């Protein structure tokens, strides 16, 4: 296999390209998750986001998530691309595509992938608000994650 299934990029993400990586004759279902930059969070307006990653380790952790999915859903195939750098409102930050023979596995594995990304993949976003900036998850600020990972509310 010469195409890379797990990628960190500083370029805009092509949804179609990620989907094509998991297309195959065995697939009867493909689910995609597209994470985009939200303008309003609890009444606060975001102007743009800056994503940063420990790129080599982030790709390694994405591959690990792929391994975990292979163990839980052996028939699923997953591809993930996450973008870093400056992203404006509405731009795509992450795309996860999962194919499987039947829909249940494709939905479940896709949901699993995004939750794991938010736990173990070393990527950080810096909010640029109208009135300042803040690293999300920065424990020095009010947005700290007391459990060391995002809470249920952040996952919606």
């Amino acid at each position, binding site marked *: 296999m010469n195409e890379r299934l797990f990628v960190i990029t500083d370029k805009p993400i092509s949804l179609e390209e990620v989907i094509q990586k998991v297309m195959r004759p065995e697939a009867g279902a493909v689910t995609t998750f597209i994470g985009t930059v939200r303008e309003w969070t609890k009444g606060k307006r975001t102007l743009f986001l800056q994503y940063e990653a420990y790129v080599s380790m982030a790709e390694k952790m994405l591959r690990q998530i792929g391994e975990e999915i292979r163990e839980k859903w052996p028939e699923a195939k997953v591809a993930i691309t996450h973008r870093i750098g400056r992203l404006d409102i509405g731009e795509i930050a992450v795309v996860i595509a999962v194919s499987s023979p039947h829909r249940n596995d494709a939905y479940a594995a896709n949901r699993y992938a995004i939750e794991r990304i*938010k736990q173990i993949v070393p990527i950080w976003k810096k909010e640029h608000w109208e009135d300042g900036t803040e690293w999300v*998850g920065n*424990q020095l600020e009010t947005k700290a994650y007391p459990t060391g990972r995002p809470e249920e509310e952040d996952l919606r």
Partner: protein
Amino acid sequence: MITLLFFAHLQEAVGEERVILPHVPKTVKELKEEVKQRYRISLEQVMVAVNEEYAGDEQTLQPGDIVAFIPPVSGG
């Protein structure tokens, strides 16, 4: 020597992305104490990765290790 990497707000607090430490602290725990004192930063909730693998406090360090300080992640 070992190499230290800092990210996100830790990088801003330390003022460096990469720091070369001439000596090798015995364990991750020892290194964390040193980093906390040297840069006057809190490492609460900060995870440590040694050579791109998450590591516990008791893990021992070897010359040439690359140690990353990883604040709570916020990708996705």
